[in-house]
Structures are given as structure tokens and as C-alpha cells.
């Protein structure tokens, strides 16, 4: 019926026709600056994209050429006026617009079919609960593990996401998978995908959600199925990626680890490091480097020494006293960070008090 259907069958490779389609796919994808096709549905959707863009460029090109020809051919010259009376023949209009309507309906049929596919997860899907909040993503699995900033999923198995939000509307977007779904407070929406192979893909927020909107980044880490099983059992994958801009939860430190190390992991897990840098870089909130014990000017003119009491207050009731020059946007972590974690995070901040960056820390 269309190039889009043909594309669906061409993914396996082998045979001259498939080679041709693969080359065509590579050409279009580069010309249109599309990201990699990392989910099972990505190539189908791109196929429809190519199909429509090709027809449209042909149509727009035709309009441009015809208009240009008329301009040159019928430019105003002596003797051109008066112009003849020309009125559209009805058959011409009917054929043209019926053909166009047929084409548009074809686009709609293919797009709607794919939309239904996008909306209907298979029953065998792995479930993940996604909670968005300003400005981080949290992921929880029915088996128990939870993580912030990194979504671990198995390759080759469908994954169903149940999305919601704690505060305002966010939108979960993975360009490499060609999926997007709003996370709306007070309701659950669903989305699903099946990743083709192990790898890492960016998650972006596409619904305006405040000053941290463009920093609300996270990653999908696609694991081999066996590694994913290990992750579910041990709450952490065998090989944890340790780089990237977003807050990566490392495997929780072993019991008895120094409190500052536990604090660093907790800060990453709760997304603190998305707004507070640990290397002195100015972000949405003050950098933690050299912050502990310093004296800061508040927005209301008061000068305050950064003590454990002030840090605790700032975590639980952030709007009360804001450091001058920063927006009053930090959400409360009341009831979300345990007392033990609070102590550990403060200890980690104390370890940065001397102004020497934490060499071991993951760059968030």
C-alpha cells in the first residue's frame, strides 16, 4: 500500500531489495537529522515520515515551479492587458481536491494505525512506574527496586510505563524510541516501547515545567535480559554506567561505607545534583562546593551561616530562606528523604566544605 508498509518488512536485511531499503533509510535519516532507530516502532514511524515528506516536497516543488513559470511567462508587458476571463472548470477542481483528500486520508490511516500500536502495549510487557517531579524522573519496579535519573530496561522485551507527576505536567520523551507521553498529576497515563539492543538513550522533558525544564534530563539504559534480571534481584546492574550529565544512582554503597560516600549516592538518587553542582558551577541552586560553613546573603537581606540546621530546613521547607540571586523554585523533600539520608547528605556537603572538588564523584 505504501512505502511505510514496505519499510516494516525490510528490517531483517538480506536480499537486494532489503539492501536498497536499508540504504534509503540511512539516506533519509541523515538528510532529516533523525536520531537512531532504537525501538521496534521507530523504523515504521520514520517510514511514514519519509513517505509524507517526499510527497510534500514534490507537491511544494511543483507549486513553486508553476508559480515561477507563470511569473516569468506572464510578467506585465505592453499588450498583456486586458487579461482574459478564466474560471476554474468544475471537473478540474473536483478531481484535484478528491485526489488530495484521498492522499490525506491515506496519511491519516497509516498514522492512526501506528498511533494505535503506540497506545496498545502487549500483555507480556515489563511494568515500570514513572514519577516525574520538578526536575527529575523516578522509576520504580513492582519487584521493589527504584532509581532516579536512570531507567533500566531489558532489550527485546516490551516495557510498559505508567506515568504520573507529583507537581505539574511533564512529558516523557525518548527521541531514539519515537515515543512521548505526558506525565499528569492526579492521573496515570501509559506508554510502551521495546528497545532493540543494549545501549543508552536520552530522556527529555517536553512539557514546560519551570526553570529546570531544560535540565530535566535522564537516561534509559537498555540491559541484556540476563543483566536486567540481575538488576531486579540485586537492585543494581552488574556493570553500572558511571558517566553522563544526569544524576546516576550508583549501586548503593556497602554497609559501613563512609557517611559522605553514602550521602553522595543519596544526593544523586534524589536528584539534588541536577540543580546543585559539586564543582562550583552555577546552576539552578547554589553549588555545594565550599558551601558548608560559609556565610550566605539571603534574598531578604539576612546573612546566614550554612549549618546542618539551615541545610535541613532548606531540604524540607526550601522557600523559607533562599540564598540571594537564586530563584525560589526548589521543591520540598519532606517525607521523601529519610533522616539517615539527610544526615549523610549533610556529611557529604561537609566533605566539600574545603572547596576541593570530589574527585571520585560522578559528574552529574
Amino acid at each position, binding site marked *: 500500500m505504501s512505502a511505510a508498509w514496505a519499510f516494516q518488512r525490510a528490517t531483517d536485511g538480506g536480499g537486494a531489495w532489503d539492501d536498497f531499503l536499508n540504504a534509503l533509510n540511512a539516506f533519509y535519516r541523515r538528510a532529516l*537529522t*533523525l536520531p537512531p532507530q532504537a525501538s521496534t516502532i521507530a523504523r515504521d*514511524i520514520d517510514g*511514514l*515520515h519519509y513517505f*509524507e*515528506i517526499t510527497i*510534500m516536497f514534490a*507537491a*511544494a516543488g511543483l*507549486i*513553486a515551479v508553476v*508559480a515561477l513559470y*507563470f*511569473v516569468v511567462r*506572464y510578467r*506585465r*508587458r505592453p499588450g498583456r*492587458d*486586458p*487579461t482574459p*476571463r*478564466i*474560471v476554474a472548470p468544475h471537473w478540474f*477542481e473536483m478531481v484535484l*481536491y478528491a485526489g*488530495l*483528500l484521498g492522499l*490525506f*486520508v491515506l*496519511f*491519516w490511516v*497509516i*498514522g*492512526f*494505525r501506528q*498511533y494505535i500500536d503506540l*497506545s496498545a502495549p502487549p500483555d507480556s510487557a515489563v511494568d515500570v512506574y514513572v514519577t516525574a517531579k520538578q526536575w527529575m524522573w523516578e522509576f520504580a519496579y513492582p519487584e521493589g527496586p527504584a532509581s532516579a535519573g536512570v531507567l533500566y530496561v531489558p532489550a527485546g522485551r516490551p516495557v510498559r510505563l505508567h506515568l504520573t507527576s507529583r*507537581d*505539574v505536567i511533564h*512529558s516523557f*520523551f525518548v*527521541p531514539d524510541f*519515537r515515543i*512521548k507521553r*505526558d506525565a*499528569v*498529576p*492526579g*492521573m496515570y*497515563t501509559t506508554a510502551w516501547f521495546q528497545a532493540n539492543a543494549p545501549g543508552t538513550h536520552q530522556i527529555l522533558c*517536553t*512539557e*514546560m*515545567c*519551570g*526553570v529546570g*525544564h*531544560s*535540565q530535566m534530563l535522564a537516561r534509559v539504559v537498555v540491559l541484556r535480559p540476563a543483566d536486567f534480571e540481575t538488576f531486579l534481584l540485586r537492585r543494581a546492574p552488574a556493570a553500572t554506567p558511571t558517566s553522563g550529565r544526569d544524576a546516576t544512582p550508583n549501586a548503593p554503597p556497602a554497609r559501613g561505607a563512609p557517611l559522605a560516600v553514602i550521602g553522595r549516592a543519596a544526593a544523586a538518587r534524589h536528584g539534588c545534583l541536577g540543580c546543585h553542582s559539586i564543582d562550583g558551577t552555577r546552576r539552578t541552586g547554589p553549588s555545594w562546593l565550599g558551601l558548608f560553613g560559609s556565610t550566605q546573603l539571603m534574598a531578604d537581606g539576612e546573612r546566614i551561616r550554612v549549618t546542618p540546621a539551615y541545610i535541613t530546613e532548606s531540604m524540607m521547607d526550601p522557600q523559607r530562606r533562599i540564598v540571594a540571586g537564586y530563584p525560589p523554585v526548589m521543591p520540598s523533600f519532606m517525607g521523601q528523604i529519610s533522616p539517615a539520608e539527610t544526615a549523610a547528605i549533610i556529611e557529604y556537603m561537609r566533605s566539600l566544605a574545603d572547596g576541593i572538588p570530589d574527585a571520585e564523584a560522578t559528574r552529574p
Partner: protein
Amino acid sequence: MSTTTTPPASPGTRRIDYLNVETTIRSWLTTTDHKRIGILFLIMTTAALALGGVFALLLRLELLTPGGTFMDAMSYNRLFTLHGVVMVWLFLIPSIPGAFGNFLLPLMLGARDVAFPRLNLASVYIYAIGAVVVLAGAVLGGADTGWTFYPPYSTHTPTAVVPVLLGVFILGISSTITGLNFIVTTHTLRTEGMTWLRIPLFVWAVYATSIILVIATPVLGMTLLLIILDHAFRLGIFDPALGGDPILFQHLFWFYSHPAVYIMILPAMGVMSETVSAFAHKNIFSYNAIVIATLGIAFVGFLTWGHHMFTAGMSVFDSGAFGILSMFVAIFSAIKVFTWVSTLYKGSIALDAPMLYFFGFLFLFSFGGMTGVAVASMSLDVYWHDTYFVVAHFHFIMVGGSMMGFLAALHYWFPKMFGRMFPARSSTVAAVLVITGFILTFTPQFWLGNAGMPRRYYSYPDRFQTLNVISTVGSWAITAGLVLIGAYLLYALRWGARSGPNPWGSLGFEWNTPSPPPPHNYEEPPVITHQPHEYWRTAE
């Protein structure tokens, strides 16, 4: 020219026209003359365009580098919100209807004035009050929600969202009055012989726009009031933390705001129908097709709002219905494009500035329209929704289209309004700058969207930088063109060559009066015997 009923002004004597009949400031501020009200709207909406344009320039400058360039995230969010609010409600919606609709509608219909002249004057003041309230909100801290005001963000934001919402609410009253006035004028004040199928196409376009304004704007007003109540009194209509439904807001908002894009583009389409006829000296290829398509857009445009919500959590069935209705509305736009291009066939085409904007419109509208069909394909919309692809799409079709319409109208009817010509060569240079600037600014944004860059992003991953730089450079070209236009039009107001009554040789009915028109438009009511722009009759 068989309907000309006004004797041409004898040269040498000082003819009384609407500009020189009274010249005090008071006479302008208390005028009920539709032509003067049109000029007042032209001044105010052009000022709004300049303001919104400065915001856009700052935004593009900030996006020159991936991180913060020269402002913080909060300022950026406030700026893009103000850019959207000012451009949509202070410029795009009121500009062509307020300025050219007011000026031309009675002239084209052969009427003395609009149906409610004093109400018309009120619409000027209500617009001014709305603009002041919006700008007061901007000074008080501005909103940072985007022009869409989605709750619960808009009910929680610490910024001054209430005055901005209130200002938009007041502006809505102004445009509703304008719409009401145009509808009644078109029904009741047509001159003898002006049957419905002889009405100029610009009037049809403004008439259809007015219907949308009158039906849709009250829904916006109601919705904005509910947001204000949610924000100020924690009422809980839309805020889920108080038991409200944020998706309900999106339905109500887009029930207005989708038809609103037709409020912006329909008048520009009307300008194009007039322009292509007048500068090709040719009857329109199919008058009926344009009229049917105009009314079709106004009607079907009300049934497509859900296509803004394909990722919001609407049912699959509803989404499908909104998808196919969106395809239908695209058909009507395609009908117009084909009709305009066919009108050029065997014409006598003069490439004056308005015609250059017609070709700019044709290009931007064709690509904008076809990418519109692409985003109406639902699976593709899931990918493109809230990315720069959509930003590029609506800046091509809605902003580009309306801007081209506004600039074409400004140049086409400048001699009508002021009796003077603008310098031809400067106008060509400016048109080329603006049109190429538009293409340069927004074409890279299609690729940015394809690559997955979300909109409303203060900072962006490094891989998007090259295309952002090109886009920013394009914004400077648009600015240069617009500044040039402002300069030579101000020059031409005083020093431009006298244009005579009809410099373009146009057969539009509005040219049946002298230029600039006398205060009362027509010495005696004209009698219309055929459609406008029947150029083959000039042989008779």
C-alpha cells in the same frame, strides 16, 4: 471601472480627506471614523510587533550557545511567554482585522462606516487597556508559563501570571466587539447591488474571522478567569492537588486557541486573494472555491482542537477523530493555494512589493501547510509534539503567513490610506530580506525538531548548536528588513510621491473612492453590478 461613482478630485485644489479634515490629537482620540480607527489599530499593533520582535531577538540571542548565554533560565522563560502573549494577542489577532478590516470593510462594501462606530472606538480603548495590563504584568515580574498557561504550573508559578491573564481577558473583549461589528456591518450595510456573491474576498475572510472571534473568544475569557480563580483563591477547577482536572483546561484552551490560528491566518488569506488579483490584473480563478474554503476553515477549524493533545492522555478513538478532522481542514487551505496559483495563469503580473509578499506567503504557507498535514498524522505528531518541529511549523504557516499578509496589506493599501507611494527599490530589498530571513530562521528549526530538541528549552545539548546559530542569524535578517520597512514608510508618509487615486490599476471596490478617501467615503452610495477584479471588462 463601470461602478466608479465618485468624480476624481480636481488637481491643484486641496481636497478634504479623512486625514486633513481635522488634525488635532483630540480629533483622533475621539474619532468614530472607521478609517481613523484602522490607523489607530495600525499604530498600536505595529508597536506590539516591535516589542514582540525585540523579545524574539533576545530569545534567539540567548539560544546562540547551548548553556546560559546572557540571561538566566527564569528570564528566558518569562521572555518566551511574553513573546508569545504579545505576538498572539497584541499583534497577530488584532492587526489585520483591527487595522485593515476597519479601514477597508466599509469602503469595500460601499458603506459610510461600520454598523456601530462608537463601539468601534470602544474597542480601541479596550485594546489599549488590555495591552497596558499585560505590560504591567510584564513589569511586575511577568508569567513564565508559556502563552498556553497550562495548569497546574500556571496555578503554582511564583510569577505575576494574574495580570497577564487579566490583560488577555480584556483584549478578548476588544476583539469580540470588532468581530460583532464586522458581522453586522456585512449583513446590513452592503450598498445597492452588493449581493453576497459580489462581496470582495477580503471581506469574506474578515467576516469568517469575525464569526470565529465571536464564538470562540468568550470560551477563552471564561477559561482564563477560571485559571485566575484557581491561582488566586485555590478554587480547584484545574489544579489536581485541589481536585481539579488539568486536561479539562487543555480542551477549553484549545477550543479557543486552535480556531485562533484561523483568526490569524484567514485575514491574511483574504489579503492574498485581493493582492493576487490586483497585481496579476486577473479575475480570481474560482471565487466560489475561495468563499467555500473560507467558510469551511471557519467551521471545521472548531472541530480540530484535540490535535494539540495527542500525547496528553486522551482516548485513542477521540484522537483518531481529531486526526481526520485536521486533515479535512488542510484540504480547504490547499484549495486556496491552487486557486491563487491558477489565478496567475495568463495574467499580467507586476512584481511590486505586495506581490513579493504574496510569493513569500505562497512559499511559507505551502511548506507550513504540508508540515501541518505531517503533524496531523498522529504517530508522527507523537514524535514532533512540543519539539522545535512544531515551532517551525507554526512560525511558517501562522506567523509567516500572517506577517506576509500584514506586510502585503500595508504596501498594497498604503497609497489608499495616505495617498503617497513608498520607494519601490527599498521595498523590494526589504521584502527579500524579510522573506529570506524567515526561511533562514525557521527552516533549521524543522531539523532541530527532527533531531529531538524540545521547545521552551533554555539550555540544550551541544549537538543542536549549529542549527541554532543559523536560526539566530536569520532572525537578524528579518529584523533588518522590518526596520527598513519602518524607515521608508515613515519617510513616504511625508515625502513619498503622490500616488493618485489608484496607482496599481486595481479593480477592487475600495479604489472607487479617491485616495486618501474623503471622511464620508462616498459622495453618494455606489451601485455594484458585478464582482470585483473582473479585469477582462477593461477592454470594454
